[in-house]
């Protein structure tokens, strides 16, 4: 556990991608099988244990220590697993470094895979006794599934690629035929054996992603070379049916089929489809917040499926039967896709329509003012070169995304709450409001949203100071900040969309709000009115 704990600890504090890659690569070179494979699986999110719920951890600690002392500790640290790891009353006189009872990662993982729930609780306590604080932290993070050390599955695969000196797409290609602890994969990367077969039916194919287009790109690009289509505001997916093997993958290759059994039912075709997962009612796209009701769930019951029916809007076709189309140009793939979707004839699979255009100016106008209907809910436009092959990764040039400009409003800071993790000493979560006029013509601020990013560390320090200097009242972790006609901090807030919401007092809910600018210069009374937001709401659809 020690080496894994050290790795996690270093990863958590190393912001740079290259630094993380070095740490991962070295770990995989230094540690033996199967330990490195289990570590990799844990980091890539392939190992999930639900044996230790936070409530259990709390109970185990409180059985050994005064609840009030634990509460003070938790309050100070702000993270349950970390608090428990730090305060766990260790056995007197034990030397954790030499204690033969200190578990290795392999032992932990393999025990957890076979142990019953009751056994897990007993094991957990004995492991906590045998480990030091860092080891306990790693163990608890592993068990509660919250590693959060900034390693994506993709980064883990890149580290593998670096270790073996191969391209990351080669790793992605075979990844889905491999299982933790990946001994075949390591054998290949260490040149002890052949590349493992990727031939498993229904496997994930690495997806192609778009670069964000920059203003000066247009001058270099000929509109005749590109097709345009809407960038739908859902979740990018790869839908597979190969010889009856049906799969639904996220763009990073995570299998999300369990949450979308209805979509899986409609994959009545033979091929690999690239598209956007959306809530579709009678062929019309619903808002992202509707889709959110279906995301990150382990299952979806009939009620949920009926209320938020999910479907796929198709962008591309990678395979038709055994026929690999990825080396064909987009123009040819598109033709095959159109026929494919027509033949599939499914109410939950439709085609993402192309938007013809003659000039960038014309396309720009379309982006700024999409026609009524689904397009109003799109995130923007996608540009794809007619001659582009389907290439894994994010190559520069063939595909671009051209997102809509965000909506902006000026709002006044009303409440601030201390952040979590690295911001636990800063007031970094802000509730902001706009002016509302009541029946008597009195103006008051009404909260319309909450944002906790979009500012630099320097700006955070300044807002934090402002909050501390201008606190009117405190409710637990929340401070009420002085805000009125003649005093207040104006925040320019950017957001992607607006929906009616019964849950919010103001009646509106923002999608993806963030602070875009601090308007120290702007008097609070000149911030926006709720009526402005309500007008945006009407314009949305």
């Amino acid at each position, binding site marked *: 556990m020690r080496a894994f704990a*050290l790795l996690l600890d*270093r990863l*958590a*504090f*190393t*912001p740079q991608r290259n*630094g993380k890659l*070095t*740490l991962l690569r*070295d770990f995989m070179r230094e540690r033996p099988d199967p330990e490195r494979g289990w570590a990799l699986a844990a980091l890539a999110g392939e190992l999930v244990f639900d044996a230790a719920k936070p409530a259990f951890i709390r109970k185990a600690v409180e059985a050994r*220590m*005064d609840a*009030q*002392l*634990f509460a*003070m*500790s938790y309050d*100070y*640290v*702000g*993270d349950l697993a*970390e*608090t428990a790891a*730090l*305060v766990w009353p*260790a056995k007197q006189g034990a030397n954790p*470094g030499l204690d033969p009872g200190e578990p290795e990662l392999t032992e932990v993982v393999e025990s957890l895979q076979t142990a019953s729930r009751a056994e897990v609780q007993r094991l957990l306590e004995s492991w906590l006794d045998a480990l*030091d*604080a*860092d080891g306990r932290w790693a163990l608890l993070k592993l068990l509660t599934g919250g590693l959060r050390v900034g390693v994506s599955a993709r980064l883990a695969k890149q580290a593998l690629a670096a270790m073996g000196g191969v391209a990351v797409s080669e790793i992605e290609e075979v990844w889905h035929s491999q299982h933790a602890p990946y001994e075949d994969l390591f054998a290949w990367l260490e040149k002890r054996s052949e590349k493992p077969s990727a031939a498993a039916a229904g496997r994930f194919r690495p997806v192609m992603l778009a670069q964000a287009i920059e203003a000066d790109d247009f001058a270099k690009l000929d509109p005749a070379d590109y097709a345009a289509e809407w960038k739908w505001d859902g979740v990018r997916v790869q839908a597979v049916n190969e010889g009856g093997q049906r799969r639904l993958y996220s763009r990073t290759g995570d299998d999300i089929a369990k949450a979308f059994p209805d979509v899986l039912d409609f994959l009545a075709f033979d091929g690999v489809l690239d598209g956007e997962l959306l809530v579709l009612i009678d062929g019309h796209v619903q808002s992202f917040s509707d889709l959110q009701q279906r995301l990150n769930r382990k299952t979806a019951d009939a009620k949920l499926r009926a209320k938020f029916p999910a479907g796929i809007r198709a962008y591309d076709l990678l395979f038709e039967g055994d026929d690999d189309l990825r080396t064909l140009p987009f123009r040819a793939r598109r033709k095959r896709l159109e026929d494919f979707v027509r033949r599939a004839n499914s109410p939950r699979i439709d085609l993402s329509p192309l938007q013809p255009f003659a000039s960038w100016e014309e396309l720009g106008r379309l982006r700024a003012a999409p026609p009524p209907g689904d397009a109003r809910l799109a995130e923007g436009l996608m540009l794809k070169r007619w001659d582009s092959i389907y290439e894994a990764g994010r190559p520069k040039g063939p595909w671009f995304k051209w997102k809509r400009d965000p909506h902006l409003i000026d709002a006044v800071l009303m409440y601030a709450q201390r952040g*979590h*993790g*690295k*911001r*636990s*000493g*800063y007031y970094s979560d802000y509730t902001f409001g706009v002016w509302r006029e009541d029946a008597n013509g009195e103006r008051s601020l009404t909260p319309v949203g909450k944002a906790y990013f979009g500012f630099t*560390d320097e700006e955070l320090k300044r807002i934090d100071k402002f909050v501390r200097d201008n606190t009117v009242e405190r409710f637990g972790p929340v401070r009420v900040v002085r805000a009125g006609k003649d005093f207040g901090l104006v925040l320019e807030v950017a957001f992607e969309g607006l929906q009616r919401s019964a849950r919010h007092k103001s009646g509106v809910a923002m999608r993806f709000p963030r602070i875009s600018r601090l308007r120290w210069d702007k008097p609070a009374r000149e911030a926006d009115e709720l009526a402005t937001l309500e007008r945006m709401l009407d314009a949305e659809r």
Partner: protein
Amino acid sequence: MVKPHEVLCRSPAGLYCPPGDFYIDPVRPVKRAVITHGHSDHARMGHESVLATAETLAIMAARMGEGFSGATQALRYGEVVARDGVEVSLHPAGHILGSAQVKVRARGLCVAVSGDYKRRRDPTCAAFEPQRCDVFVTEATFGIPVFNFPDDGGEAARLLKSVAQFPERSHLVGAYALGKAQRLILLLREAGYHETIFVHGAVEAMNALYGRFGIDLGPLAPATVDKAKRGDFAGAIVVAPPSAIDDRWSRRFADPLPAFASGWMRVRARARQRQVELPLVISDHADWNELTATIREVEADEIWITHGNEEALLRWCALGGQKARALSLVGYDADEGEG
């Protein structure tokens, strides 16, 4: 029976002994001061007379100039000075070079003031000696159960492993110029690191002083760029005061990897706030286990807590039936101090 506060009490200038008419670590200029150690929040300028260990007096002179006080009197550990029926003696506190606990005995009552202290081994100073007393006045910088510090050798090993793993970067270690820096350097020497360690000017001055007291820190060089090029510090360890690491000073190093040696690094959010990439949990203060073990060991009737996080320690004392109270002294950097 004399009341403890008749021997030692709280006053705006700090802890005051009425029968002896002196203050311990006063935060403003006074007639007579007893100084526990040389950190600037405890050792201030402008007293009429100062009683401290020879090392502490030397540190004060080095940091504030020879005229830092009217008169000075050096006391050896264990030596007793008596005046007006009050006996004062200094005893090792294990915090930094010259650091001392102050034991005051008057009218049959013994009060021991810990100053800042730690219990684990430190090759740069004498080890803490617990004093039996009626009232034990303790610090509580790390008086929360989450602060249990690991073995410092392991922390040094993590730094050395990182140096081997990232040879293209300069490891910039924040460590308080007085005490922590020298201890860290010796820890690295003990871990088998014999390369030149580069130091910031503030650290250099204190290293020289430690050298005068016979502490050999091995090969050192100033981290200056007069003749050197940026790349010259790649793969090197540089020790600097924590403030210098956030400062423009650190821009001279190629791709610096910020590390920080402090007890505060035990809590991840603290390390993140300081944007530290390699938090090293090395403290010159007693951790929770050391604080509670020391309170048990001195067997005092009463525990007074001077500064730091006293709430949890008070709770711990209450659970064990130990009489305790918080003095909540101000002026000592319990939070962002040398840790």
